């Protein structure tokens, strides 16, 4: 039986001028036909702005169709008398974990939905108990949500929906703001709900590896469903997905490229074991028996010929010293940054990486240890911190949240102006910075708030770049972006590093990204520096990385049998 059925669903939104005249009409949804059977696990893919979130809001009757019809558990969403029944049956989990938790204690938040439904007190408690245990958050029931990790908050949000006993749960990019561990937690929880409680799940995401276990995948673009089928049917169209601004898992891409090279890997490969099996069938030998040719590049971490720009020595920092919440954030960390290098810093949330980078431009002061910038101790009384901040630029996570001026251009000028540059110099610096992040003159007079997520982020990066730093540190610059937005930013950074010969420090959760772009890699764990070396060298410790909850890129695992540390799809294709 179908639980959700949309028939030619259309949703329009109009842009009006100051006099409320409609100047433009766009269709966020343009004739969507989706049919979901009860108990299925459905994934909806699409880049930012493809209409997938709008569709999700229709299922929950937060929006109603302009044309066409949408049935949820047999009820028409336009029927206002069924509104609350529809919302109860189609629960929704949103992207930002902070903005959907209402209460200040976990169990009270889970009880919020049942309270609204008018469920008797005794039954609320039963439902809350059950919902919390279904998402594995029972031991946190008396905690305050602010103290939980992102993944835990999303599980609380899921429990809040489960407690309403819905037939169907819609998750709108629930993992976009989480780190890899949080992502795994949430996806595992959702799968369990689907299998054990038989709840229909609709997962909206742009992480491809979250999709491979779905029963059915829909791909949306410009308000239309452009592809649908099982994951292996959809992922067989590698080129098409890429042209839609999406991505495929690394093994899938390698298999696809091998097909092109004449090694027949079949229609679509989704996991490593399947890959190995098909590879053996096609070539007659195991992956581990491939030849030694060609040789992989050695790590290029030749430091001798590069200037040492920033040198941190034995940094120690403790949060909330002397209280119950005391925790060490940095424990004897030393780090060198050389001119013009691309350094990756990885580690999961709480590993101390954010604390470390805030020390590097003097926003935080170490309890002990020293930092030298071009040989000068930044903790000296005479040393000017504004001078340091000009030369060591720091782009925070979600930097678009710091935009405030009325035009893009003025916003980018903020930094140089603060440095006391003349008007001409400021204008020139801003123009150069905007050009280098790929934004042309068309954008200068626009308001930063009317831009897309990826564009806003580039404006924010330009704002720091305009100060002309020697070291540019970025804290997860790709968080929350779709695959295309992510690649655009990273490619731009690589170009910057070459053009300006500045050191780029990329803090990231994504092993694939650092493997593709960084020359050198630092791994942080529990406030300590665990590894510091060439990328390939660090990833050769993938077993140890896994023990601390990190992992190497998927391709490294695929190729582990060969005894080589392979880091990118290109290398793997060449070797096979």
């Amino acid at each position, binding site marked *: 039986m179908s639980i959700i059925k949309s028939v030619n669903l259309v949703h329009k939104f109009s842009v009006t001028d100051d006099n409320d005249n409609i100047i433009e009409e766009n269709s966020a949804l343009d004739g969507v036909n989706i049919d979901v059977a009860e108990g299925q696990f459905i994934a909806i893919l699409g880049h930012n702005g493809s209409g997938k979130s709008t569709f999700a*809001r229709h299922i*929950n009757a*937060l929006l109603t169709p302009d044309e066409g019809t949408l049935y949820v558990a047999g009820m028409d969403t336009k029927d206002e008398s069924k509104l*609350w029944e529809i*919302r*109860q049956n189609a*629960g*929704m989990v*949103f992207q*930002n974990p*902070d*903005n*959907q*938790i*209402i*209460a*200040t*204690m976990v169990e*009270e938040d889970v*009880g*919020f*939905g*049942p*309270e*609204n*439904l*008018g*469920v008797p*007190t005794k039954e*609320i408690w039963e439902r*809350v108990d059950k919902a919390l245990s279904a998402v594995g958050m029972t031991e946190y029931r*008396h905690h*305050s949500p*602010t103290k939980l990790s992102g993944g835990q908050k999303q599980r609380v949000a899921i429990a809040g*929906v489960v407690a*309403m006993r819905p037939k169907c749960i819609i998750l709108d990019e629930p993992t976009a703001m989480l780190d890899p561990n949080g992502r795994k937690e949430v996806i595992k929880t959702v799968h369990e709900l689907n299998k054990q409680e038989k709840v229909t799940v609709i997962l909206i995401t742009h992480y491809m590896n979250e999709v491979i276990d779905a029963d059915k995948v829909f791909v949306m673009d410009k308000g239309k469903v452009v592809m649908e089928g099982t994951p292996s049917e959809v992922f067989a169209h590698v080129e098409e997905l890429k042209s839609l601004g999406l991505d495929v898992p690394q093994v899938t891409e390698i298999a696809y490229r091998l097909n092109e090279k004449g090694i027949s890997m079949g229609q679509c490969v989704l996991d490593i074991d399947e890959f190995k099996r098909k590879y053996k069938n096609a070539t007659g030998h195991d992956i581990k028996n491939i030849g030694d040719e060609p040789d992989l590049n050695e790590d290029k971490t030749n430091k001798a010929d590069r200037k040492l720009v920033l040198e941190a020595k034995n940094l120690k920092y403790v949060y909330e010293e*002397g*209280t*119950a919440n005391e925790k060490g954030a940095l424990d004897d960390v030393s780090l060198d940054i050389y001119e013009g290098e691309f350094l990756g810093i990885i580690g999961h949330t709480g590993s101390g990486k954010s604390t470390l980078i*805030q020390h590097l*431009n003097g*926003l935080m002061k170490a309890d002990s240890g020293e930092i030298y910038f071009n040989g000068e101790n930044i903790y000296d009384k005479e040393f000017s911190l*504004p001078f340091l*901040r000009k030369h060591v*630029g*720091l782009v*925070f996570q979600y*930097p678009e*949240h*710091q*935009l*405030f001026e009325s035009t893009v251009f003025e916003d980018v000028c*903020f*930094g140089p102006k*603060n*440095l006391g540059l003349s008007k001409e110099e400021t204008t020139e610096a801003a123009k150069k910075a905007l050009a280098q992040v790929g934004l042309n003159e068309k954008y200068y007079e626009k308001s930063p*708030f009317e831009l897309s997520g990826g564009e806003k982020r580039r404006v924010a990066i330009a*704002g*720091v770049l305009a*100060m002309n730093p020697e070291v540019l540190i970025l804290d997860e610059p790709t968080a929350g972006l779709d695959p295309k937005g992510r690649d655009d930013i990273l490619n731009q950074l690589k170009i910057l590093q070459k053009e300006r010969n500045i050191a780029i420090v990329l803090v990231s959760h994504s092993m694939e990204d650092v493997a593709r772009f960084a020359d050198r890699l630092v791994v942080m764990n529990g406030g300590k520096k665990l590894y510091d070396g060439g990328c390939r060298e660090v990833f050769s410790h993938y077993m140890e990385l896994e023990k601390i909850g990190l992992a190497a890129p998927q391709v490294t695992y695929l190729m582990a049998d060969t005894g080589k540390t392979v880091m990118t799809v290109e290398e793997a294709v060449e070797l096979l």
Partner: protein
Amino acid sequence: MIRDITIGQYYQADSVVHRLDPRVKLMATLVYIISLFVADSILGYAIATVFLIVSVKLSKVPVSYVLRGLKSLIFILVFSASFIVLFSKGDNMLAKFWIFTISVEGIFNAIEMVFRLMLLLVGSSIMTFTTTPTDIADGLEKAFGPLKKIKVPVHEMSMMISIAFRFIPILIEETDKIMKAQIARGADFETGGIIKKAKGLIPLLVPLIISSIKRALDLATAMEARCYRGGEGRTKMKPLTYKEIDHNAYMILIFYVVIIIGSNMLMNDVLGFSVMKFFV
């Protein structure tokens, strides 16, 4: 820096004070604040202090944590104390220059005022440390429940308070983040005159307001999606009912009021002089 503000935050522990009905705690806080203005003698302050120390101990909130909240308000305390010292006139002048006078009375007044403020702040923070904002809101909703009859939106107001509390730590963190981000872009929040400082706040306030509006919209959507439609027909997961412990707490409170008033009468009327006269 800004994260040190602990006032208004719940501290999780399992204590008698935590288990009390929020209405009791609201009433006790109110009574305590009034008592600080009634108690006008050393004995009165001593009783109020002892009462507070016992409550802090019972609440199992670490003393250092309680005092940290005061730390962020030291400036206000020092400022108002010096104001009183410099401007209050008294019979026993110690020094006089320009428009300022320092007198023994002024100093005593200042000490008394600072002490009173500290008791007041700690006293009210005990309530917020031991009561979740939802409970505070519930307590207020129930205590003011009768006002619903004259169309006062009691439920909506209590929901607003509870949400405000929920977002305090989030917004504090966000302010901290935006501030750091702008400092990294060379912004200066520290130096300059009032006008320059006020102008300097724009890069902080604009992003903060924009993000607050976005959060508010998100939250409203999330609440609607979870079938929130006002107080009508809503049930409670934790309905408020008085238990024995609450009755006892009320008795203790009454007892406290009686001895505060008693001490006041004893010091002022029976002995015929106030603390200050005693010292002067």
